[in-house]
């Protein structure tokens, strides 16, 4: 067993990840902003209680007024006072295919976002930087859609049964073999929903007496699965290998907390790309640690499958490692394949065990047949088995778009989190008022973005998140960048203190190192 050498020996290509620190003035102003909003919130609650202001949210039934109240007042404080003000940035209804350009139903609110009315007009041609459409498979015509239509007319839309009863169609078997081949593992199993895949299979793999080491910023499905399993959970700092190693050492040396017996299993839960940060897991180091301390690795590739790696095979291919090193490879079909559902891949014994013991196989319905066909066609397209090079072209296009977009944004002076190669681009906004303003200004200019605040992110680090797609052409990206530049100047969100010197027209080269000036 080799000792871990500092990064140089394990990484075959430069790993550029940056999380610039919050400028002090901005942090202070953000806290002040939240403080003012909280004060106003208390004032309004007071007025509502004393009936000075009309109470506009739904209330309890008359007959049930003397029941124990369903919601504590304080739990909903954030909801009522802060979320309501900027509620129109979320849940925007669209009425066309969620591709690179999308049509949105217009809605207005005459009473400060308490209720919405639809004007009936449709805003057409909004550049969509919010949907998880990495390889552009969300299309309404093309080979994928035709194949799905055929399967729909033959098999119907639903399944009405679980996998272990009558729900195991021949299409499902075909899909599983294909997924196993795509990932390079021995076999795979698919489930109806990505969220449910995590929350129902982690309990089947670990139980009481096992240890789970999970990253700070893991997704809610992983956290729920870990909690439902009953194992002990310890959290290590985000992407921080020293923290992980310390926890592993402690676990092996001290054993279980009271009995001091060794742990039955140690499972490390990480994600390929973290959707809120845009960072990529340091997989070579994690695998080296895993081998040294003999634990198991569970990799959730929800965002990275199809989006990273020269062949679109995910983060394992991106780092040039072997898929046999990862014990459980999990992913979803929602993001890059334009369908729905999740899968788990690994060794044959593991998958056979899961076929019998997974909660999802016994109690939950299987995938719907047209969805299965969409996954099969898109996966074959990415692998190149349908005879064209469309798949490879898309993966290349996504990589180019990512590099170009990130470089241009950094040049403009925004603070961008995350790795250079991740198609998820978070742009920091920090202040609560700017969250709402950014969303609305971008919509006025016909660009749809996603803004996130508390509680999905830490309270002062609210951000706007762009999801790039292979379907975005360079013109669309340029238009978007121009508008972002304008809005950034208008709202003064260009906080970055490390400005990049704009590169002149150099040919696109992977080993370009940018010059920074402070």
């Amino acid at each position, binding site marked *: 067993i080799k000792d871990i050498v500092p990064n140089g020996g394990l990484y075959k290509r430069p790993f550029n990840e940056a999380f610039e620190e919050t400028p002090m003035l901005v942090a202070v102003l953000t806290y002040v902003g939240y403080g003012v909003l909280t004060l106003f919130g208390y004032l309004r609650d007071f007025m509502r209680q004393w009936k000075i202001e009309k109470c506009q949210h739904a209330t309890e039934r008359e007959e049930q007024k003397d029941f124990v109240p369903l919601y504590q007042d304080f739990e909903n404080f954030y909801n009522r006072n802060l979320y309501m003000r900027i509620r129109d940035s979320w849940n925007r209804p669209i009425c066309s295919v969620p591709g690179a350009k999308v049509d949105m139903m217009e809605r207005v609110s005459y009473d400060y976002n308490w209720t919405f009315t639809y004007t009936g007009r449709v805003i057409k041609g909004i550049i969509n930087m919010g949907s998880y459409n990495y390889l552009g498979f969300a299309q309404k015509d093309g080979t994928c859609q035709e194949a799905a239509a055929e399967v729909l007319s033959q098999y119907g839309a639903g399944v009405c049964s679980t996998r272990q009863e009558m729900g195991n169609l021949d299409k499902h078997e075909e899909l599983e073999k294909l997924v196993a081949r795509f990932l390079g593992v021995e076999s795979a199993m698919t489930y*109806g929903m990505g969220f449910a895949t995590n929350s129902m299979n982690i309990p089947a793999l670990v139980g009481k007496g096992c240890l789970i080491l999970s990253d700070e910023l893991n*997704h*809610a499905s992983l956290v729920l699965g870990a909690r439902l399993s009953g194992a002990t959970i310890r959290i290590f700092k985000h992407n921080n290998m020293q923290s992980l190693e310390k926890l592993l050492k402690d676990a092996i040396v001290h054993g279980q907390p009271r009995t001091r017996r060794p742990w039955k299993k140690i499972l490390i839960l990480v994600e390929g790309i973290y959707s809120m940060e845009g960072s990529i897991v340091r997989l070579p180091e994690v695998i080296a640690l895993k081998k040294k301390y003999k634990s198991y690795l569970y990799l959730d590739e929800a965002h990275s499958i199809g989006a990273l790696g020269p062949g679109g095979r995910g983060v394992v291919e991106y780092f040039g490692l072997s898929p046999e090193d990862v014990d459980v490879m999990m992913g979803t079909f929602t993001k890059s394949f334009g369908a729905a559902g999740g899968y788990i891949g690994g060794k044959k014994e593991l998958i056979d065990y899961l076929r019998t013991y997974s909660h999802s196989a016994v109690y939950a319905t299987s995938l719907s047949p047209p969805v299965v066909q969409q996954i099969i066609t898109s996966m074959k397209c990415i692998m190149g088995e349908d005879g064209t090079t469309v798949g490879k072209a898309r993966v290349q296009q996504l990589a180019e778009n990512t590099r170009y977009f990130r470089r241009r944004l950094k040049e403009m002076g925004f603070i961008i989190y995350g790795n250079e190669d991740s198609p998820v681009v978070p742009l920091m906004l920090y202040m609560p008022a700017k969250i709402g303003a950014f969303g609305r200004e971008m919509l006025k200019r016909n660009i749809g973005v996603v803004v996130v605040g508390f509680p999905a992110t830490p309270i002062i680090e609210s951000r706007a998140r762009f999801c790039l797609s292979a379907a975005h052409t360079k013109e669309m990206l340029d238009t978007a960048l121009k508008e972002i530049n304008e809005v950034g100047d208008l709202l003064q969100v260009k906080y970055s203190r490390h400005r990049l010197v704009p590169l002149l027209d150099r040919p696109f080269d992977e080993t370009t190192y940018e010059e920074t000036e402070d």
Partner: protein
Amino acid sequence: PPTHIITVNGKECINFASFNFLGLLNSEQVKSAAQASLKKYGVGTCGPRGFYGTFDVHLELEERLAKFMRTEEAIIYSYGFATIASAIPAYSKRGDIVFVDEAACFAIQKGLQASRSNIKLFKHNDMADLERLLKEQEIEDQKNPRKARVTRRFIVVEGLYMNTGDICPLPELIKLKYKYKVRVFLEESLSFGVLGEHGRGITEHFGINIDDIDLISANMENSLASIGGFCCGRSFIIDHQRLSGQGYCFSASLPPLLAAAAIEALNIIEDNPDIFQILRDKCERIHIALRG
């Protein structure tokens, strides 16, 4: 393709295993509606409900379901299992008390486990046992009135139990609800589209005012021959799930073609209310024949 005659391992068999209660799995109307939606929207939605994953078909389906069940609002989940498993932890937290039937289905058990509340099981369909537990709880409350004022209490029952196949006695349950001030969550996965004159489930079967039940949750995978689930009830209760239902906020929305299939299935149910009577006659015949 799973319909009434199904090919298993190469042999043709009559299908008594799928939950295809109304036979809508092979209906041409449903399939053509799904095809139209496929041509318009593609297959996937590529995003959760909050981030450009809300389509007009979702909003339409929610309105139709709310109107059909005669409640104020409905909310759609993309997977039947996740519906009740996300709804229970959204309301019941650590320290709250939930009275649940022993024969509750697996999804309810997982929801309860995720909510970390105190769980008290009562014997299957035994209202006397439930009353005994409620009385014990009342005695505890009087010892500690401050705590009792903030612990919420829920009863979770199913309309038609998946594990045993019988119906829960809803009218007595409602009387207990008002006597001991407990909220009722009803899980109607198997009884939606089966019981009741128009298929509205167990509340129509017993003739109970639907506002008496706080939350009805069902999945569309049985009678409506689609995929997904929904919860319906008053806006006061359902709106909370839009921000705190885990399977709603953190997961991609339902593919539009399945939502269109569900709308079409609802249309069929509303237009032909006599299929429920046919289903009931067939059930009675089989029961009588099997019992001898």
